Each structure stands twice: as structure tokens, then as C-alpha cells.
């Protein structure tokens, strides 16, 4: 059969490529990618050591300043900068990702993250870097005009690199203007900015607690203080061991226990609040929290021998830290926002996570039969920073003596307007009193008034 001379064009266009890489990532995650690059820079300056809980590295001389307004986004750090080689070879290239070659306890230096982030943010981009080039400070800039860049699909797909003035400190400055409607809209929203602030405080808690300074629109973010309760009866577990993924050594640390007493009520509205509580499992890869407060099958809930998450289990926090010189050995998804559940080292860690989780579940079940005793014991447990939790192979929780079943109980359910409930709560002792408490107190009040004491 004779071939037709014309060929179907299968070359990708830049616009298609940009759409694909920016489509499935949220704006917040893009900003976190940029912060990751800065954090990795700081860590490299400090000699790229493993980032476990014990390590006392002081990061207080590093700062990352983020400005996000409807007109402009910028991130400026003093974390050492990216070298010209890094820019030429990795940071701006498509397809020549070299994260696997890095051996520096990073979580992915200049992978797809930076390009994806800036394309997601806007159309007029300028990346500047000042770095130490064998003892001499050097600088360059990469200006990107997205619409101009997209207008020509002919290879090679490169970006111009120009000489630039030195920045005040070695570091990277990224300024994005002509923001995309999505970015401009989000930066207009105080709720988005508060949410971003909260996510940064949580996901970089380990870095912020070591002194790293991150600010958003001029105000500094303080890291989440992760604490577990400790007393004679309550002892969190803290376990360390090593594993191997493709011959790469990975250090693993698991900490888990009671962060707050379990809730009193299973009221649907209070359950909704419960979802916002920071309880559940945290997975940390090379210092960065990649999965926070997980209550799903990813951390094991609802899988074999492990029940689905239930609000009754609130109060529990478990943290598992994976540390490896080579980021490829970590159980990380490419978006760096979740865990690769097919990872062998993660699968092998799960039974240890299950053990502490199921002990907590058993405690909260037992607790229902001996609430007063449990509450008294819980009140004695004091918050202790996770950094100072002592090593202990298993969690210790009090053994409660369950009371024999007494009189049959009746459940009362009714609905009233929220405004009236709030007013009554205020009169009964506190505007934030739970619905259940208001119900019980008003029942007791009416009972005492109409029926009298027993």
C-alpha cells in the first residue's frame, strides 16, 4: 500500500503542555512547591543533614517572604540561591528532571514544581537568583512572558537567561505579575490567605520550630506546636527504626498518643467541627508534612482490622517521619501532597501505625462505660512537645474499670433555632457550650424546678 506523503502532526504545543502541568494542582500546592524550593536551599546551606526530630539545626538566619495581592505575587528568600547550572540543567527544563540524582535530604529540588507554580500564578514572570559561584557571588535572571513564549511552539523550548544585579542576599526572588484570574481571585480573599497561612504553619512546623522565618503579606507565621498529653497513665509511643527502599536507607520515626481528650458528643454539627480538628495521622517526608490529620484509608482507617474513622476517636494524633538522603526513596506522591500507598516502606510501617491507633480506639470504647474515671485521668495528663517525648515501644493508656449497666436511658432529640440556642447557652453559662450540654442543662434545670431533687 502506498504511503501518503503527508503526516499527522503529533508534536505537542506549549499551551497544551502548560495546561496539563497546571491543571491538577491547586494554587495553594503551587505556593508550597515554591516554599519547598526555598526550604531545600536553606537545608543545603546547612550541610544537608537528615531532618529528624532530634536534630537541633538552627534555621533562624533563613527567611522566606511571600507577598500575595490581587496584582502581584512574590516570594523572596535568602536561602542560598540556585546556581546557573541548576537553572540551565534542571529548574527551567522540561523532561530533564534530576531530582533522583540529588542526595541531600531535599524533597525535590527544582523539579516540575517551580515552572508549574509560576505558570499557574500568572503571565509575566521574573525569576532572579544570586548564589555563591566558587567563592564569587553571581547573579542571573530568567524573565518569562508567558503569552509570548506560548506563541512559538518550535523547539527548542527554552527560556532566556540574562545577567542581573546581585540581590542583597544569596537567594531567589520570584515576581509574578499579570496574575491568572484564579490567582488574583484567591489573593483577594482573606479566607484563602488565612487558609494558606494555616497550611504553612502546619506543613512547615518542623522547620518553623527550628527558627526558619516565613512571612505572608508582612506578618510572620509561627509554626504549629505539636503536643501530646503525658502523665503516669498516658504515655505516647515513640519508636525509631531503619528500613530500605531500593537499597536506599530510610529512617523512620513514629510518635502517637493523646493530643486532647476525646469528645463528649456525637452531635452531627459538632461532628462537622470535629472534621476540622487536627487529629488523625501525619506523614512527614524529609521534614515536610505531606499528609496532615488524615482520617482516611491512606493512613489505614477503614482498611483490614482497622475501623473507619469515627468522631469518637478524636483526640488522637500520630506522626510518622520518613527521612532519606534520596527523595526518591520516600513514600511521596509526585504532587508531594500525599503518600504513595503502594510504597513498600510505607506498607511495612502501617502495622505499627495500626497498633497505636487500635489501642486508642479500644480506649475510647472503654471510656464510654467509665467516663468520669476517664475524665479525671485525662485531666492529669499535661501537654508535652513531641520533641521531648521519651522513647517507648508502645503507647500506654489507662485501664478503666467499667461500671455495671444501670437504669435504662432515654435519648432526647429536638431542633430549635440556633439563635435561641445561643441565647440560652449564654444564660446557662457559656455561649460556646455544646448543643448537647445546653440540652442536658435545660433538662436538669426544668427537672429540678418542676419535679424537684431526688
Amino acid at each position: 500500500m502506498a504511503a501518503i506523503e503527508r503526516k499527522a502532526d503529533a508534536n505537542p504545543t506549549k499551551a497544551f503542555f502548560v495546561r496539563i502541568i497546571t491543571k491538577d494542582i491547586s494554587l495553594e500546592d503551587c505556593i508550597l512547591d515554591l516554599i519547598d524550593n526555598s526550604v531545600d536551599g536553606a537545608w543545603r546551606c546547612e550541610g544537608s543533614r537528615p531532618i529528624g526530630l532530634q536534630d537541633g539545626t538552627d534555621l533562624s538566619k533563613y527567611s522566606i517572604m511571600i507577598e500575595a495581592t490581587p496584582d502581584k505575587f512574590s516570594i523572596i528568600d535568602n536561602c542560598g540561591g540556585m546556581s546557573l547550572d541548576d537553572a540551565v540543567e534542571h529548574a527551567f527544563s522540561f523532561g530533564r528532571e534530576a531530582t533522583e540524582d540529588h542526595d541531600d535530604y531535599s524533597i525535590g529540588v527544582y523539579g516540575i514544581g517551580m515552572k508549574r507554580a509560576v505558570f499557574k500564578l500568572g503571565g509575566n514572570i521574573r525569576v532572579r537568583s544570586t548564589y555563591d559561584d566558587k567563592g564569587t557571588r553571581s547573579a542571573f535572571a530568567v524573565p518569562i512572558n508567558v503569552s509570548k513564549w506560548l506563541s512559538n511552539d518550535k523547539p527548542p523550548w527554552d527560556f532566556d537567561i540574562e545577567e542581573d544585579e546581585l540581590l542583597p542576599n544569596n537567594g531567589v526572588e520570584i515576581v509574578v505579575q499579570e496574575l491568572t484570574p484564579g490567582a488574583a481571585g484567591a489573593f483577594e480573599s482573606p479566607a484563602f490567605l488565612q487558609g494558606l497561612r494555616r497550611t504553612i504553619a502546619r506543613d512547615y512546623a518542623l522547620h518553623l520550630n527550628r527558627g526558619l522565618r516565613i512571612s505572608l503579606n508582612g506578618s510572620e507565621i509561627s509554626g504549629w506546636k505539636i503536643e501530646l498529653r503525658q502523665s503516669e497513665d498516658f504515655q505516647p509511643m515513640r519508636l525509631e527504626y531503619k528500613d530500605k527502599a531500593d537499597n536506599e536507607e530510610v529512617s523512620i520515626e513514629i510518635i502517637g498518643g493523646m493530643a486532647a481528650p476525646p469528645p463528649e458528643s456525637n452531635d452531627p454539627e459538632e461532628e462537622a467541627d470535629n472534621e476540622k480538628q487536627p487529629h488523625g495521622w501525619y506523614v512527614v517526608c524529609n521534614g515536610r508534612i505531606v499528609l496532615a490529620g488524615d482520617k482516611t484509608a491512606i493512613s489505614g482507617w477503614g482498611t483490614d482490622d482497622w475501623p473507619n474513622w469515627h468522631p469518637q476517636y478524636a483526640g488522637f494524633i500520630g506522626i510518622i517521619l520518613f527521612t532519606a538522603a534520596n527523595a526518591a526513596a520516600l513514600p511521596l506522591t509526585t504532587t508531594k501532597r500525599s503518600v504513595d500507598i503502594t510504597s513498600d516502606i510505607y506498607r511495612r510501617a502501617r502495622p505499627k501505625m495500626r497498633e497505636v491507633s487500635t489501642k486508642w480506639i479500644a480506649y475510647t470504647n472503654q471510656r464510654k462505660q467509665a467516663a468520669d474515671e476517664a475524665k479525671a485521668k485525662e485531666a492529669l495528663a499535661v501537654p508535652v512537645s513531641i520533641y521531648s517525648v521519651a522513647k517507648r515501644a508502645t503507647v500506654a493508656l489507662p485501664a478503666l474499670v467499667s461500671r455495671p449497666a444501670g437504669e435504662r436511658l432515654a435519648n432526647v432529640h429536638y431542633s430549635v433555632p440556633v439563635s435561641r440556642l445561643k441565647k440560652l447557652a449564654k444564660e446557662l453559662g457559656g455561649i460556646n457550650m455544646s448543643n448537647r450540654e445546653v440540652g442536658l442543662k435545660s433538662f436538669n434545670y426544668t427537672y429540678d424546678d418542676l419535679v424537684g431533687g431526688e
Partner: protein
Amino acid sequence: MGSFNVVNYSLRPSKSVQRQIIFEGVRLLHDHLDLDGQVYVGFGSVWFTDFVLAHKLLGIRDMVSIEADDVGFRRAKFNAPYATVRVVHGRSTTVLPELYKDELITNRPWLIWMDFDYEFDESMKDDIRALIENATENSILIATFNGNEMKYGNAPERPERLRELFGSVVPDELSKKACKDERMQQTLADLSLDFMRSVAAEQRRPGGFVPAFRAIYKDTTPMVTVGGILPAKGAARVASDVVKRESWPCWLSKPIVAPHLTTREAAVLQAQLPRAGKLSRALVQSLGFDLEDDQIEAFEAYYKHYPAFAQVIS
């Protein structure tokens, strides 16, 4: 019982000053935005003071007053000042969704003033959210609510209560101090405006939300008035330029506390204004009476909006 049974609305000087200032602001917006066919939606009560201003000052024809109280509804219908005022019976939460679908007024810019006398609560939040989601472009949304700190629980409970009310816009570091005394009204104003901006941004309203109104006033209890413009995409810049001007009257850093003066005192003081220097206490004394310094300052600041009340004997 509706509050019209408790307070004669027209006798609250600070409220009256505040109302005048807000309408002055809306009048300025009329010069710059396409507000043709604007509809006024409010809580006219039985007094309709704001409706009269909307008609006389802004030339608004079609107006809707929402009244929840049964007796109040019948009285409101009786007292409606113009033929084009429609009184609708029900709570705003149930009436507003009907109005979004009302062919007569939908697709026209609204000036809606949710002038509540109670504290910011869950249903008010729902109303504001729905209004921002449904309002036609170039609508103006204003909300007034009670800013008395005690309405939001005892001091230690307030930050949590505000978190419950305003959700994720509340900073994690909101302090008890920010919820005490005069700071409380400032905090409420800031959070409610942040809430409005966030709702508009979440919903990607093409022109966003331009905060434009922020006034605290006090007759007996401190009240908070906040609001803004929901401009058409092309009008956002113009709207934001107008409200950023030095002369924009509706963004007040200090609360309006208008002194209670007799008609005679007000007239004598007014005759001294405007003047080059400040009105002094010595000058007031030389006029034959006396006032506290803060009363003199407040009168000088708001004399152009100071109401004249007189008893009508009939």
C-alpha cells in the same frame, strides 16, 4: 416584639447621622456607576426613614421592605410612604430567596441595607452569603448589626464565638483583647468585611467585592455598619477608586457618638460653623451654655448631618 415598639427610630441622633453619611456615599456612587433602575431593599419598619431618603436623595422608585412581625407587617403596609414601596411579610432568610427570583426587580442593581438591631448571627451570615452570591452586578450591600461585646459571650468565649460566626477569615491569633470594649466593634467590622470579600472571591464574582462602608455608631448600644459594592467586571476599578478617595465619607475610623442637644443648642452651635479654628469649650460657654469636650468635637464633625427633631402636637 419588634424594636419599633421600643425605640422611635427617628429620635436617635447617631443613627440618623450614620444614615445620612451612608446615603451620601451611595449618592456619590451614583455619579460613577451604572445604577439605573436601582431597587432599594430594606427593613423599613413602621418609620421608613431610609426609604424616604432613598427616594428623595437617590431617586429610587421601586422599593421592598421586609417585615417579620405580624402586627408590624400590617402597620408597615399602612405607613408605607410611597406607592412604589412593597412590604413583604416574613424573615429576611425566607423572603430574600423569593426576591432573587422576582421578575420585577431581578436583573436590576439593588441597594440593600440589612439594618438589623440584634447581633451578627448564623442566619445573618447566611443572608449575607446568599446576597453576595445572588446580587446583580453593581448592587450595593450594607449590613448593620449590634456590636455590643456582651452579645458575643463573656470575654474569654468571644474569640471562639467569632470563629464560629465568621469561619476561616478569623486569624488564629485573634486575642481576647481584640474582642473587648471599643476594639470589639472594630474587630466585628473587619471580620464581617473580610467575610464578604472572601465569599465574593470564592464565588469568583467577576468584579469581586469592593469594601466601601465601615461605620460604628452609638446611641445607647454600639452598632456596626459594614458593606460594599458588588461591581460589574468593568466597574471594579472605578468603584474602588471612588471609595479610596480622601473625601469618601463612609469609611470612619472613629465611632459616631452624636450628642443629644436641644434644638436651640444645636441651632446656636451650627451658626458658629463652619469656622477656621476648632469650636472650643470656652466659646460654647460664651454662648451661654456648656458641653463636654467630646460632645463639642462630635457636633463639629457631624453638624451637617445632625438631625433636627421637634415634637409635633396634633
